[in-house]
C-alpha cells in the first residue's frame, strides 16, 4: 500500500517536473504500533541538461554538480544508513528499499569513460571529492572495496547517447553516520533546512532514531530529446515515539512514579505496590513538536506545490483524531488512511495526533522476502556464512538476485556452498544448489587487491525457507594492515537483494545486516612493550660495551701501518706508486 502511495506521489511529482527546473518537497508520516513512527522526507529538484552543462545552477546544488561533471558521472546513488529495518514490526521498506543502503555508506555510480582504467580513475576522483563534500570516509573506497555488479543494479535514468557507461559500486560498512554527514546534506537543499519540512531535520532527533537512512540520487530524465538532471534527496527515519517524547531536560528513562504506572487492574493481586503492566497499551498521542522538538517553519518559498495533494501526509487509522495548526489545508486521499496537509506559507505548522486504543490498524505491507545473513562457526581460522531466505507468500515463488561483496581477508570456499530447503511441512532437506540457484556470477578476490564478488540468481519456492551455507577461511593480516583503532573485528558489507517483481515494474531491494568478522589479532601492546624495553636495554648497555670490546684502539701511525698490510692498502700503494711512475715519466718527457 505504502508502495503504491509513494509511487503515485513520485509519478505525480515526475509529471509535474518534466516541464522545467523546479523543486518539490514532501514529508510522509506513518505510525507503527506500538510506538514507532516512520518519517519519510523527500526533496526533489530538477534542472535542464543544457543549463546543467553550462553550469547554470538554480535548484541543483552547485557543489555536487561540479563534482559530477568533473568525474564524468552520469548517474549517482549515495546512501548513508544506520540501524536495521525491523520488517516484522514495520512491514515492507519505504520506497521498496530503492532509497536505502546497507549499514554505513554505500555508493554506486554510472561513469562515462572509454575503458575500465579511466572509469576507475574517475571513480576515485568521485569518491575523493564526495568524501570532502559529505565529511565521510568515502576516500577509503579503494580497489578492494570496489566492485562492478553485473545484474544487481540497473540505471534509473534515461541515458541517451552514452555508450560507454561503467557501473561501479563501493561500500563502507563500518562508517558511523552522524551529524557531520547531515549538515552537508542539508546544505544541498535550496532552503538549506531553514524552511519547509527540512526544518524538522535536527541532528539530535534524527540520530536518536531506531533506523535512519539518507539518500541522494542524481539521474538524467528525458522526455524525447529534452533532458533534465534530477536530484532526489530523501531522509527516512523510524523514531521511537516514547523515547523522542522525553524532554531534553530529563532524557534518562528513570522508573516512573508508582502511581503513574499503566497497570492491569483486573489482576487479583493488583495492589499499590504490585503491578502487572498492561499488555496492550495502545498507541500514544504525539505531535510533531513533541517528536522533533520543533515545528515546521512554514513552507519553502522555492517549492512548487502544484499538482500534489499537500506537503505533509499522514497515513493513519481513519477514526484517529488529528489536529493540525489552523490555516493549513487538509485533503483526504481516496484510500481511507491517507490525509495530507499543506502548511501555511509563513507561519509555523504543527500536527497533533490523539492517542489510540487499538481497534483498527493501518495494514502493513508484507515484505516479499525475509533475508538474514549471519556468520556461524567459531575459532580464529575458519568460519561459515549462513544466509536464510524466507518466502512468506504461499502461492508465488520469489526470483531475485543476491549480491554480496566480501573483503579479501575473508576467503570463501564456493565449492562448499550448500542449500537446504524447509518446506511448508517444516522438514529440512538438502537440495542440489542448482535447484535453487539459477545463475551465478563469481569473481574471486585477490589478496590486497580486490574483494570477492558473488552474484547469485535465486528462486525460492512459495512458503518455504531456503538456507545457503558456505565455509570460509580467515586470512592473517600483516600487522600494519590492522586499523589503529580498538580492534572490535572487521565489518563485512551487507548483502544486497534485488527482487524483480514484474507487476510493479521497478525492482524491490532488500539489504541484510552487516557482519562482524573477528580475525586473529595479536595483542599489540605486549610485543611493543617487550620490544621497546629490550631494545633500550640492549642499545644502552650491550651496544656500547660490545662496541668497546670489538673496536681496536690504535694510534694514527699504527693505523696507517696496519692499512698498508691489507689488500686494499697494498693495491692503493701500488696505484700511487704507478701514478708517481707515470707522472715522473711524463714529466721527464716534457
Amino acid at each position, binding site marked *: 500500500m505504502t508502495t503504491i502511495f509513494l509511487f503515485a506521489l513520485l509519478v505525480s511529482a515526475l509529471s509535474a517536473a518534466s516541464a522545467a527546473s523546479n523543486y518539490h518537497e514532501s514529508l510522509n508520516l506513518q505510525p507503527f504500533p*506500538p*510506538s514507532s513512527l516512520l518519517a519519510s522526507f523527500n526533496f526533489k529538484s530538477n534542472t535542464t541538461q543544457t543549463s546543467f552543462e553550462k553550469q547554470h545552477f538554480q535548484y541543483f546544488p552547485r557543489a555536487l554538480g561540479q563534482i559530477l561533471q568533473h568525474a564524468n558521472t552520469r548517474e549517482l546513488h549515495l546512501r548513508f544508513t*544506520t*540501524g*536495521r529495518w*525491523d520488517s*516484522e514490526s514495520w512491514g515492507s521498506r519505504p520506497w521498496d528499499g530503492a532509497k536505502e543502503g546497507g*549499514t554505513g555508506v554505500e555508493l554506486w555510480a554510472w561513469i562515462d569513460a572509454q575503458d575500465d582504467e579511466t572509469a576507475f580513475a574517475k571513480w576515485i576522483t568521485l569518491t575523493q571529492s564526495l568524501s570532502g563534500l559529505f565529511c565521510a570516509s568515502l576516500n577509503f573506497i579503494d580497489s578492494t572495496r570496489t566492485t562492478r555488479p553485473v545484474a544487481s543494479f540497473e540505471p534509473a535514468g534515461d541515458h541517451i547517447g552514452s555508450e560507454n557507461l561503467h557501473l561501479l559500486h563501493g561500500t563502507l560498512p563500518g562508517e558511523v553516520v552522524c551529524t557531520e554527514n547531515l549538515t552537508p546534506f542539508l546544505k544541498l537543499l535550496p532552503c538549506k533546512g531553514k524552511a519547509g519540512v527540512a526544518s524538522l531535520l535536527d541532528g539530535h532527533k534524527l*540520530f*536518536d*532514531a531506531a*533506523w*535512519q537512512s539518507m539518500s541522494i540520487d542524481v539521474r538524467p530524465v528525458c522526455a524525447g530529446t529534452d533532458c533534465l538532471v534530477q536530484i532526489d534527496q530523501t531522509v527516512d527515519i523510524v523514531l*521511537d515515539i516514547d*523515547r523522542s517524547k522525553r524532554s531534553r531536560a530529563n532524557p*534518562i*528513562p*528513570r*522508573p*516512573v*512514579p*508508582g502511581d*503513574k*504506572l499503566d*497497570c*492491569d487492574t483486573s*489482576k487479583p*493481586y*493488583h495492589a499499590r*505496590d*504490585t*503491578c*502487572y*503492566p498492561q*499488555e*496492550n497499551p495502545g498507541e500514544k498521542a504525539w505531535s510533531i513538536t513533541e517528536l522533533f522538538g520543533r515545528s515546521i517553519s512554514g513552507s519553502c518559498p522555492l517549492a512548487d506545490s502544484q499538482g500534489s495533494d499537500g506537503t505533509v501526509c499522514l497515513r493513519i487509522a481513519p477514526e484517529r483524531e488529528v489536529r493540525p495548526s489552523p490555516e493549513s489545508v487538509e485533503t483526504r486521499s481516496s484510500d481511507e488512511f491517507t490525509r495530507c496537509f499543506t502548511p501555511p506559507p509563513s507561519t509555523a505548522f504543527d500536527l497533533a495526533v490523539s492517542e489510540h486504543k487499538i481497534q483498527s490498524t493501518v495494514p502493513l505491507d508484507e515484505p516479499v522476502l525475509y533475508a*538474514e545473513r*549471519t*556468520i*556461524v*562457526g*567459531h575459532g580464529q581460522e575458519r568460519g*561459515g556464512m*549462513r544466509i536464510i531466505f524466507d518466502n512468506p507468500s504461499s502461492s508465488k515463488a520469489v526470483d531475485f538476485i543476491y549480491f554480496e561483496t566480501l573483503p579479501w581477508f575473508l576467503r570463501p570456499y564456493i565449492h562448499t556452498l550448500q542449500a537446504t530447503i524447509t518446506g511448508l511441512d517444516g522438514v529440512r532437506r538438502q537440495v542440489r544448489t542448482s535447484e535453487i540457484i539459477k545463475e551465478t556470477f563469481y569473481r574471486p578476490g585477490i589478496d590486497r587487491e580486490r574483494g570477492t564478488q558473488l552474484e547469485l540468481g535465486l528462486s525460492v519456492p512459495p512458503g518455504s525457507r531456503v538456507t545457503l551455507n558456505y565455509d570460509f577461511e580467515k586470512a592473517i593480516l600483516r600487522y600494519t594492515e590492522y586499523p589503529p*583503532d*580498538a*580492534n*572490535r*573485528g572487521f*565489518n563485512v558489507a551487507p548483502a544486497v537483494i534485488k527482487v524483480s517483481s514484474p507487476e510493479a515494474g521497478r525492482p524491490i531491494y532488500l539489504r541484510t*545486516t*552487516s*557482519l*562482524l568478522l*573477528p580475525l586473529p589479532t595479536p*595483542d599489540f601492546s605486549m610485543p611493543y612493550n617487550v620490544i621497546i624495553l629490550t631494545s633500550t*636495554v640492549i642499545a644502552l*648497555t650491550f651496544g656500547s660495551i660490545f662496541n*668497546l670490546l670489538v673496536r681496536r*684502539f690504535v694510534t694514527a701511525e699504527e693505523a696507517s701501518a696496519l692499512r698498508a698490510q691489507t689488500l686494499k692498502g697494498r693495491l692503493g700503494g701500488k696505484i700511487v706508486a704507478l701514478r708517481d711512475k707515470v707522472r715522473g715519466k711524463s714529466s721527464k718527457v716534457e
Partner: protein
Amino acid sequence: MVSPAALPPLPFNPSRVRSYLLRLPLFTRLVVLVIILFWLLELQTVWSVVQWGSLIPDEIGLSTMYRLNTYPVIHTGFFHTFINLLAVTPLLERFEAEHGTLTAIALFIGPLSTLPAGIYLVIEKFILHSNTAVAGASVWAFLLLGSESIRTFKSNPYFSLGNYKIPTWTSPLFACVLVWILVPNTSFLGHLCSVLIGYLLGLGYLKFFVPPEKILRWIEGKLNLLGRLPHYVSVDQKTYGRYGVLPTAGAPGGERGTPMSFLGGSSMALKSSIRKLRNNPQFLFIRLPYILSFLCIVAGVVWLFLLPLDDYSRKNYISENALLPGQVHAYFSGSEQHIFRGYKKELEGLLGNEGSEEGQKNEERTPVISDKIQSILRAAGLKVATQEYEYTSSGISHRGENIYAIIQAPRGDATEAIVLVAAWKTVNGELNLNGVTLALTLARYFKRWSLWSKDIIFVLPPDSKTGTQAWIDAYHDMQPSTVQPLPLKSGALQGGLVIEYPFNHRFENLHIVYDGVNGQLPNLDIFNTAVSIAGGQMGIGTRLQEMWEHNGSYEKRLQTMLRGMVKQGFGYATGAHSSFMPYHIDAITLQTHGNGWQDEMALGRTVEGLTRSLNNLLEHLHQSFFFYLLMQTHRFVSIGTYLPSAMLIAGNFTIMAIALWLRTGYSQGSPNVIAATNDEKTSEKSPLTSPDKADSVEQETTNKAAERQLALPLSLVVGLHLLGLIPLYIFNNLSHGNYTLATLISIVTNALLPLLLAALLSRNSTTTQQTHLIKSLSLLLLGLFLSTLATLNFSLSFMIGLLCAPLSFVHRISAETAPVLRYTLSIAGLVFLNILSPPVVLLAGCAYFGVSVETVLMEAAFGWDVWGMWTQVVVWCVWWPTWVVGGALVGVSLF
C-alpha cells in the same frame, strides 16, 4: 635398589665446577652457608629476619649494634640472595686464598662490615635525614671490587679509549652506577660507601686492622688448625702455597686431579667419599634420577602451597579500561519493583495450577508458563523465539524448550550482543523464580534505554545444564541433529551473565561462579568487574568457591584455591555460564546466598551495572588473564606463577624416562667389576698409576653400546594406550543403572590385568633392558601428556601427576633379591598400586565427598555427551595405561 646395569659415559664433565666448589676455602664456605641459612629462615612468617638484622638507620642503638655485623649476610629474597652469592663467592674466595682464613675472618666479621655501615649510617641519617634499610652481601662484593681495582690500578693504571684515559680504579664506580640503574631497589649510597672502604683497604690504610702475622701463626700452630679444619687456608702461604698444599710432581694431573685442601690423614675418609661421588656414574645414572624426580615432586607440591602467600599471589585489577565498572548510576529501582512483584505473582499463580492437590507445587516449567513468559517479553517489545532440544545420555533423555528474546540495539547493526541467562532451575535443581522474574523485569526496563551499543539477548532455558548448551551450540550452528536451529539471531556474543536467585527471602551476598567446562575460565576482567560493581558500588559482599567465611588467612586462601582446582580438574559445568566458555565467550553466574538485607532490586542494579560495563566494551575481552587461580575475591595467581608446580611434577616423569633410556643404551658389564670399582672410567691419557686403571679399562671394554630392543616395549605401551579407549567407550555409553557394577568389575579387572601382563612378560623372558624401556616409554608419554595438559587444564594435570607419582619409583625387583623379601615387596607394591588405580580413586573420592558413584559417572557421561568434557579421556588414555604398565612391572618380579 636395582642391580647396576651397564652405564654410559658421562655426557658432560661436571668436575670443573665441582672441583671449584669443593675447593672453596673455609671462611667462604661459612659465609655462603650462613647466607643460605638466613634466606631459608626468612621463608617462615613468624620471625622476620630482615627486620631483625638489616641495617635500618633509625633502629640503630646500643643494643642493636649487632645489625652492623649481620646485615651483609641477610637478604630479602631468593634473587637477591642468588645474585649476591654469585658475586661475592669468587671475590671472597680470592681474598681468603691470599690472606688466609684467620685474617679473612678477622676483617670481614669486624671492620669490613662495620666501617661501610658506619659511613652509610652517618650519611643516611645525619646528612640525608632518611631511613632506608640496607642488607645483603653486595657490600662485600663492592668492597672487594674496590680493593681489587686499586691493585689493578697499580699494575695497569689506565684504560684508554681513543684519546681519553680512564683510570682503572673507577671501574667499581661504573659497576655501582650500572647496578643502581638496572637493578631495582638497590642502595646506591650503600654500594658507594663500600667501594670507598674498598679503596682504603686496597691503598693499605686499613692495614692496622689486620692482626699481626705472628699472633695468627701462633694461634694456628697451637690449635693445629691446619690439621683439624678442612679447607683451612693458612696464614703462611709461603710454606704451604695458595691452598695450603704444595703441588707435588706425582699428584694426578689433568683438570680433575686437583686434590682438596687438606693435610694429614684425618680427612682421608672424606676425601674418598667425595672422590667416589665425583667419579661415579652409578650415582649419576641410577641414584640421581630418583633423587631429582623426588625433588621435582616435592618442589611441585611445595610450590603449590606457597602460592597463597602474599609474595606469590597478586592483587586483582581491572585491565580493560573500557569496562569502567561502577562509573554509571544504576536506575533500576522504584516502581520497577512493583512490576517485579506483578510478574512474580503472575508466574506464581500459574505455578500453583498444577499438582497443587499433592500439597507441593509442581515446579517444572509447563507450556502455560512458557507462553506467559513469551507474552510478557513480547509485550515489552522484544523479539521472542523458542528452540526445542533433546539430549540422550546414559539412557536418560533430557528435553526442553529454550525461550529467548532479543533487545535490538537502537541504531545497532546486529554485530555484537550480550547474553543474560536466567534458567528456570538453578544448577542445584532449585526453582529460580526470582531470577527469571528479575530477567523479565530487566528486559522491560532495558528496552527503554537507547544507549545500548550491543543487542541484549535474554535466554530463559528450562534448566541450567542442557538449555544454555543447546542454545549456544545452535547459535554457532554447531548443534547436534536433536537440537533445533535458532530462528532468530544477533551478532557476535561479547559476554554473558547468569542470574540465580532461588529463594524468596532477602540475600546477604553474591556467590560468583566462574568455572567452565574442561577447566576453561572466563577472562579475569569480567570477574573483577562483578566484584568491583557488587562490592564497590552496591555494597554487596562477594564470595567464591562456596567459601562463605573468608578472613583472608593463609588457610582460607589455600582452601579456596584447592576448591577451585578440584572443580577445574574435574572439568564439569558449574552453572549455566559454563557452556559459553568453549566458544570464547566470557560468562559468570551470580548466585544469591545467605539471609541478609539485599533485595532483588540490588541484584538487578548489579546486573544493570555489569551490563552497562559490558556494553562499553570496544573490543572482545582480551586484556586480562584467562589462566588464573583465585584465592580470594581480590587475590589471584597467574599462570606464570603457578604453572611450574604442575610442570615440575610432569617433569619428574620425563627425567626418569630419559635416565632409563640412557641406561638401556649400553650392554651389561659384569656386575662384580662395577661393584668393585665404583669408579668412573678415566680417559686413557690420564697418568693413572693406581690399580684402578686395570679395572676401569676392563669396564670400558664391557661397556659397549647396545642395541635397544624396542619392538615389545613400543607395542606394549602403544597397545595399552589404545586399550584405554575400551573402558572410555563403555563408561560413556552404559545405561545409568549399571554404573556401580561396572566400577566394581573394573576394579577387579584392574587388579588382574597387570598380573596377567606380568605373567606374559616373564614367560617371554623379558630382559632388564626391555623392562627399563617399557617403563621409560610409558613415563615419557605420561610426562609429555601431563606437561601439555598443564597449560590447558593445570589442575587436572597436577592431580593426575600426583596420583601417578609412585609410578616413577616402582620397578621390577631384581631377581637376585632374596625370594621372601622379593615376594613381600612386590605384593605390597601391587596392593599399594591398586589403591591408586583409577576406579579405586573414584570410589574413595565418592566416599569422601559423600556422593554415589552412579551420580558421578552419570554426570561424567552427561558431560561427555552434552558438554564435550574430556576428563575421561585423560583418565582412561593417559593415566590408566601408565598405571597398568607400573603394575605389570611390579608384577613381573613375582614370576
